[in-house]
């Protein structure tokens, strides 16, 4: 049989290697910084670097910059070798790489500037959303093209994980990011309230599933057997758990909304599927660990395998914990507390972080034709990282359970034992300090890793192209596989293939517009709930810009402990004009849904200027610029019109009147503040924010 010669592209692998190592450190440093901000609010150094703006920067940097580049790093090396072909197109590989890096840089800049949609892990504004969709499709076309021209008929299980990642993330990203732009960097989600929450957590949960799990499992199935130098424990199990995992994962999203105003049946659906998920998840974990049977002696000495063992163990723990947290009675305690934060960090630091560092240590010497510079330093990285994870998660689990219990504690007389929310926060400060220790250890390990990989690169010489040879696929199949004709046809026609791929995407986008029509027919439900006034719209946008939703929920669950503390529990109909919804997922500060008319305007003014003046000991950052900065209401007409097009019933032509209405309401608040001895002018940002806060939850308060 004729053997074909071809070359593997190592340069694209190296590019993603650099990006992975670099963005890892960036993500960790921002994580450490925001961890410092909680016990030491002085680390909120300026407008751009407050907790509210930096938290999404940290999550996006870790998920999409560190893990994202790590996935592509592992993918580009393994896919070429598993499919026995060079990547479909070197140009697409480069567009993929540089496009992804540009998106990350744009994300960092815009998030710090306060341009955010506020939807978790989908914070980036619409121009960047479009860029993400394009670059993602570039990767997909490149991947499917590579699969089409492969020389190995059987697609190894890792390839299946990569395919499912591409397909699902594309659909999730497009559906969740449907928004109507008001300005270049401001858009409103087409969904409102409950609907937006359901879409967001359908996306959010599956981002965990198909961005942080399936691709990394694909990497596990390539790199773990490679490093252990033995085949995966059960190939059959890998296939079964792959299909089971992807079919079940997509239904589990509503477990993020237990006890919220979402329909019970949706919550039950989320719970049931989440519990079922333990089977395919543990199938993967056990398959990974059992691959090491007979190779545990290697784990003692090989740092790569050490990283993999802890990573897979962390995966097992996180995927046991996930189903457990999806049980309503457990979720009642854990939700809105640090428990969730600890849970995701077992996943991020343990599973994702350690898988990727294992891969980095395995790949770097191979790309540079040398050995790892120092096994000792790699071991030091491993132990610092492992200790770092423990020092992070144990105090944070402790913090979560402590706070959850304190929120629910009643005295014998039937009143809340800790009615002052701040008391339950200050209780956690020692745990927050310990978390900083954990983060520092983990970061130190990563810096050692940077040095070690740098020295490895210096010691070797980069091998940009690797020659390989394999028989062509066609010869194998000629005449013996009738079902193969369609595949062969497209294999030799890259142009037709790209057209077909774009047609598929276009159909997907068209379907993506359907929700809009469906949803507009379903707006008002509570008669007293009215759209926000123009000033409140501006105030809400400031609330979104400053990332208030990162620490304050707007969702009062139907528990006595919550209605006692905050007031009447949330109703679905209250949120019908919330584009986007702002329910939040973490209460570092109290819920704000019923904060409207609870305090005088002057209280909010002083509190935003210096939170400790109103709540001594508060760890909330001060927002002095809101008092000085002039409210930019120039884009108000565009905002009103964008909101109308997503279904908020502003009367026709209201754009013309909106600014006058804004001014009237702002002047009233300024006059009210002046009566309280505070001199300001009506056109400051603080006035709009006060207007919004005083409106919150009041629509049904009067009833």
């Amino acid at each position, binding site marked *: 049989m004729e053997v074909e*010669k071809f070359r*593997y592209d190592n340069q694209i692998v190296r590019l993603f290697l650099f990006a992975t190592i670099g963005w890892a450190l960036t993500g960790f440093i921002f994580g450490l910084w925001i961890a410092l901000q909680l016990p030491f609010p002085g680390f909120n150094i300026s407008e751009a670097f407050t907790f509210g703006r930096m938290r999404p920067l940290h999550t996006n940097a870790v998920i999409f910059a560190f893990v994202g580049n790590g996935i592509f790093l592992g993918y580009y090396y393994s896919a070429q*070798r598993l499919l026995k072909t060079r990547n479909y197109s070197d140009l697409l590989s480069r567009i993929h790489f540089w496009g992804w890096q540009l998106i990350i840089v744009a994300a960092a800049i815009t998030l710090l500037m306060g341009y955010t949609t506020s939807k978790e892990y989908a914070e980036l504004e619409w121009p960047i959303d479009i860029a993400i969709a394009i670059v993602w499709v570039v990767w997909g076309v490149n991947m499917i093209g590579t699969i089409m021209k492969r020389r190995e008929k*059987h*697609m*190894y*299980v890792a390839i*299946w994980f990569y395919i*499912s990642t591409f*397909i*699902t993330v594309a*659909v999730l990203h497009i*559906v969740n990011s449907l928004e109507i732009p008001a300005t270049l960097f401001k858009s409103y989600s087409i*969904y409102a309230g*409950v*609907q937006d929450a*359901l*879409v967001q957590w*359908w996306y959010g949960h599956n981002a965990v599933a198909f961005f942080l799990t399936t691709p990394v499992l694909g990497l596990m199935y*390539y790199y773990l*057997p*490679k490093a252990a130098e*033995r*085949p*995966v424990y059960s*190939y059959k199990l*890998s*296939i079964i758990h792959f*299909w089971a995992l992807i*079919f079940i994962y*997509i239904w589990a999203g509503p477990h993020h909304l237990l006890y919220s105003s*979402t329909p019970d049946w949706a919550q039950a659906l989320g719970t049931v599927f989440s519990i079922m998920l333990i089977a395919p998840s543990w199938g993967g974990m056990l398959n990974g660990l059992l691959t090491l049977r007979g190779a545990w002696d290697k784990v003692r000495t090989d740092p790569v395998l050490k990283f993999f063992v802890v990573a897979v163990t962390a995966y097992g723990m996180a995927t046991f914990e996930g189903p457990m947290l999806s049980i309503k009675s457990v979720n009642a305690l854990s939700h809105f507390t640090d428990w969730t934060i600890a849970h995701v960090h077992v996943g991020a630091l343990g599973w994702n972080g350690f898988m990727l560092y294992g891969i980095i240590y395995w790949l770097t*010497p*191979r790309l540079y*034709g*040398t*050995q*790892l510079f120092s096994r000792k330093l790699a071991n030091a990285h491993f132990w610092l990282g492992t200790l770092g994870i423990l020092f992070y998660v144990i105090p944070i689990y402790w913090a979560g359970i402590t706070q959850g219990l304190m929120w629910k504690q009643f005295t014998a007389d039937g009143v809340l034992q800790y009615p002052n929310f701040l008391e339950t926060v200050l209780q956690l400060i020692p745990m927050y300090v310990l978390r900083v220790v954990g983060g520092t250890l983990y970061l130190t390990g990563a810096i050692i890793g940077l040095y070690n990989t740098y020295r490895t690169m210096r*010691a*070797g*010489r*980069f*091998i*940009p*192209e690797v*020659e*390989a*040879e*394999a028989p062509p696929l066609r010869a194998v199949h000629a005449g013996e*596989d009738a*079902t*193969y004709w369609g*595949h062969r046809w497209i294999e030799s026609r890259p142009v037709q293939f790209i057209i077909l791929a774009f047609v598929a995407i276009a159909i997907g986008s068209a*379907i993506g517009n*359907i*929700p809009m029509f*469906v*949803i507009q027919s*379903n707006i008002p439900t509570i008669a007293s709930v009215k759209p926000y006034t123009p000033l409140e719209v501006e105030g809400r946008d400031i609330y979104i810009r400053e990332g208030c939703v990162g620490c304050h929920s707007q969702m009062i669950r139907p528990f006595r402990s919550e209605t006692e503390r905050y007031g009447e529990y949330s109703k*679905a109909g209250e949120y019908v004009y919330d584009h986007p919804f702002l329910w939040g997922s973490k209460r570092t500060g109290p819920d704000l849904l019923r904060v409207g008319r609870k305090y005088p305007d002057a209280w909010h003014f002083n509190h935003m200027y210096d939170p400790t003046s109103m709540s001594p000991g508060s760890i909330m950052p001060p927002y002095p610029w809101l008092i000085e900065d002039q409210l930019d209401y120039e884009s108000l007409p565009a905002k009103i019109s964008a909101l109308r097009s997503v279904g908020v019933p502003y009367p026709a032509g209201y754009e013309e009147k909106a600014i006058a209405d804004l001014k009237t309401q702002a002047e009233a608040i300024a006059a009210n503040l002046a009566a309280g001895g505070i001199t300001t002018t009506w056109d400051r940002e603080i006035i709009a924010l006060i207007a919004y806060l005083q409106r919150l939850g009041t629509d049904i308060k009067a009833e």
Partner: protein
Amino acid sequence: MYVMFVLIGFSLLVALIFLGVFIWAVRSGQYEDQYTPSVRALFDDEKRVHDTSDTSSKHDTQEHRSTD
């Protein structure tokens, strides 16, 4: 809550795509052999496999750069 039906629709769409791919995979014989692929993945078909246990592995990499 109508959006739930939309989401279920999209989830079903994704699931149906996967189902189609699954049926294709089974019918085209992807899973007829459930053992050798796991072993095959371990072997590199690169012309010269880099032996990382070799301390003097800083060989001449020129040959990799030569054109074909």
